[in-house]
């Protein structure tokens, strides 16, 4: 009798809790599950032409989408990507869908963890039946997910996974519109050299803070090698993804007396490190610091790193003044939804990744993944990032083209600029572009130089 009363209590309480959660669903980033509310919104043909309304009642074409929506992943990045991909799906449906069929976007949470990424991609393909997958933020997720895509023959267009091996393994199914990690490192080091050679900055030693992931370790190795080639010494400290406490490492960084600090850690770890370094007197206002690109989410950056002024931040994609029509329309919609003045590069790339898959389906006239892969290889898509192609492919292999295998199915032209926060509380859209000089809107402020 007593036990049954307890059970009743538990059941009643759980029911109340479940109802409360359900009531919050529209605000929630459903973890590890497709978002019913979001999917419905994405799939609903709001203003489809009358003649297409019949076709739009057909079975939807399912497209998968990867984003880190909970820790230890870079949630700030994941939420921005999610919003941009929802815009893409909505736009497709407003146009009448793909081949007259509605688009259903299924967004899954990778948590920034490879094992989670493998599981959700497996689920997207074998349970949900998606014909292609876009998005993706963390390289370690990309490295793991590409194997599932290959095993199942379903294409993935990665939006923000930089690890070179993702494309260098030359899988037919894997495409990427994010930059290569080694190319980003090259830009970083060219910028550092430029600070030294053209701006008279003392630059003898750089400290690199990286994360123990498939992005962080190779990126740090590339950067170290390139710095070495430029005659600049470097020391690398690596931490686990999601690390909170940097006190011990910061004391070691201080003891190295670096002329510059480069942060390759992502997500809230990058915020924690930068602010804790600032508290210890070696923050961006004391030592020139390259912060991680999540710092471009201005609201979150200033909330978490109030002493982050003068951070240099790498920005992928063209400066706002060079946005094409697609990018401008996307920014307008994105701003209306999020209240932000600009769109993050990874959000822009995520939008393009969904649109690329959609165009590939249209071009091939088929939802067969192998046909979509053929179409992607030959695609010429005007995206928010600019005209996107994959010139190194099965008909023009890296060997034939005489290029490194990393360029396989790789968008060759993502622009990379370095911007700097020069006013406390500044919005990311108002940051000064300091490098390269062709896009420069102002001179860099170099702190801590005697």
């Amino acid at each position, binding site marked *: 009798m007593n036990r049954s009363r307890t059970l009743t209590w538990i059941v009643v309480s759980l029911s109340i809790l479940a109802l409360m959660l359900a009531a919050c669903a529209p605000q929630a980033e459903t*973890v590890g599950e497709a978002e019913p509310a979001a999917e419905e919104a994405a799939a609903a043909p709001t203003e489809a032409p009358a003649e297409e309304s019949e076709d739009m009642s057909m079975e939807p074409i399912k497209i998968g989408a990867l984003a880190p929506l*909970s820790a230890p992943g870079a949630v700030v990045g994941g939420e921005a990507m999610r919003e941009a991909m929802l815009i893409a799906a909505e736009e497709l449906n407003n146009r009448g869908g793909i081949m007259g069929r509605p688009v259903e976007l299924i967004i899954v949470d990778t948590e920034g963890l490879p094992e989670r990424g493998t599981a959700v991609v497996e689920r997207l393909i074998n349970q949900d039946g998606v014909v292609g997958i876009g998005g993706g933020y963390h390289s370690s997720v990309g490295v793991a997910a590409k194997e599932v895509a290959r095993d199942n023959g379903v294409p993935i267009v990665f939006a923000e996974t930089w690890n070179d091996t993702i494309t260098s393994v030359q899988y037919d199914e894997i495409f990427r519109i994010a930059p290569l990690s080694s190319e980003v490192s090259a830009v970083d080091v060219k910028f550092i050299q430029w600070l030294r050679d053209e701006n008279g900055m003392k630059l003898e030693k750089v400290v690199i803070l990286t994360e123990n992931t498939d992005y962080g370790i190779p990126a740090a190795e590339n950067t170290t090698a390139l710095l070495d080639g430029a005659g600049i010494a470097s020391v690398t400290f690596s931490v686990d993804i999601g690390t909170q406490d940097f006190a011990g490492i910061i004391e070691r960084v201080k003891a190295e007396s670096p002329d510059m600090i480069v942060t390759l850690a992502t997500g809230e770890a990058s915020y924690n490190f930068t602010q804790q370094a600032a508290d210890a007197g070696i923050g961006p206002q004391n030592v020139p610091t390259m912060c991680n690109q999540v710092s471009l989410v201005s609201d979150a950056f200033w909330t978490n790193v109030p002493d982050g002024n003068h951070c240099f931040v790498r920005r992928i994609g063209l400066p706002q003044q060079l946005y094409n029509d697609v990018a401008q329309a996307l920014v307008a919609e994105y701003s209306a939804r999020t209240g932000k003045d600009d769109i993050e590069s990874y959000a822009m790339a995520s939008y393009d990744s969904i649109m690329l898959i959609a165009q590939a389906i249209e071009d091939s006239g088929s939802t067969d993944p192998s046909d979509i892969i053929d179409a992607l290889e030959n695609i010429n898509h005007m995206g928010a990032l600019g005209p996107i192609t994959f010139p190194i492919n099965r008909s023009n292999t890296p060997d034939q083209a005489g290029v490194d295998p990393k360029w396989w199915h790789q968008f060759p032209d993502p622009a990379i600029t370095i911007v700097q926060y020069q006013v406390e509380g500044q919005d990311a859209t108002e940051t000064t572009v300091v490098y390269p000089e062709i896009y420069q809107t102002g001179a860099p402020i170099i702190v801590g130089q005697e």
Partner: protein
Amino acid sequence: MENAAIFGWALLWILFWGALGGVVTPRIYARKDLEISQASFGGAVIGAALGPLSLVPLWIATPKITSRLIGIAIAIVVGIFIVAFALADPDNLCVANGGFVISQLANGIVIGVIYGLMALGLTLIFSILGVVSFAHGEFYMIGGMVTYFMTAEWIPGVSPIVAILASCVVTFAIGYVFERIFLRPMGSGEIERPTEYAILVTFGLAFFLQYFTQALTSAVPVKAQRFFPFPSLELPGDSGAFLRMTPGNVTIFDAISVPNPRFTAAVLALLMLAALLWFLYRTWVGKALRAVSQDRQAAAVTGINPDSMNTLAFSMGAMLAGLSGASLVQVFSWLPQVGIPAAARSFVIIVLGGMGSLPGAFLGGLIVGLVEAAGTGCIPDATRAAAYIPAYGMVILTLVLLLKPTGLFGREL
């Protein structure tokens, strides 16, 4: 490491004689019909300290192995370890830079105090209810959330003290309600398998709190501003500044530096600890709580209601976790998953200190804080030093459990 062989041989010496002492000593004491509860642990540390020079006299004289003897042996082992490390790597910052060492120690103590406070709540719950609360990290998270949202969103400009008190009230209330509804039936024998039930129900609470909070607030990281920024000042000394303060940092002798958020968090933790000790040792209710933790039936005979003590202990444990989260929300970025590593660390600490032991939890917190600081600062390979942070506490825990399965201050079962 220049002379790795020296360090390697020293470690081998410690491990070999420690293992021999740990295995042989209890047998010798048992053969002589002596008390063996400390024989394994004591034999291991005494052997590790001086090898045959200490083991042979120990085995012949078989003195009573006191805490003092063990303490001296541990100090010698630590000394050998440090000397071997210094000889092996003379250029290491932990050897060559005194200011660095003191800064690391200060950081270790500061974070250790906060770990200790967090673990105190968990061990308080275990000592009274016999339940390991898997929702402890979520109470930590709720404490941080209430403090952040009160100071930054709901009532901007409100004193952080008010926000911290509010977080204490909220976590206490959640703990109270949860205990009354879900854990009270355990005490009255209504649950057939209470251990499994407690694990499941606290796990359920953890998931609920985490995802419900995420639904309410999103998972974007936030951080509270410094609670009490230092004034900017500089007191000159004979050579350089004796004391230099900026809003975010205090530096003494241009060498020892402690960031403001950690300093204020540690002070808050110490104040709360003092209040807790006063409550437990100087008030009737506190004494009643301790009585229940020692002998539930005997306490009931004296008129103490064990069920009420259960509720109070769980609520206070939740509040202590909430207080830790509240004081650290100015140090670490907050998000709904922020309690997971904190809870994992608390489990390590309470097992290390001895399940249910309040002094053990606090000392365990300090040990973990110091070991993490030492490991991060002294491991020569910069690419690995911080990556091993979660492992440092586990290494110490494993060693202690090997030698003393009940933990440092745990009761024999």
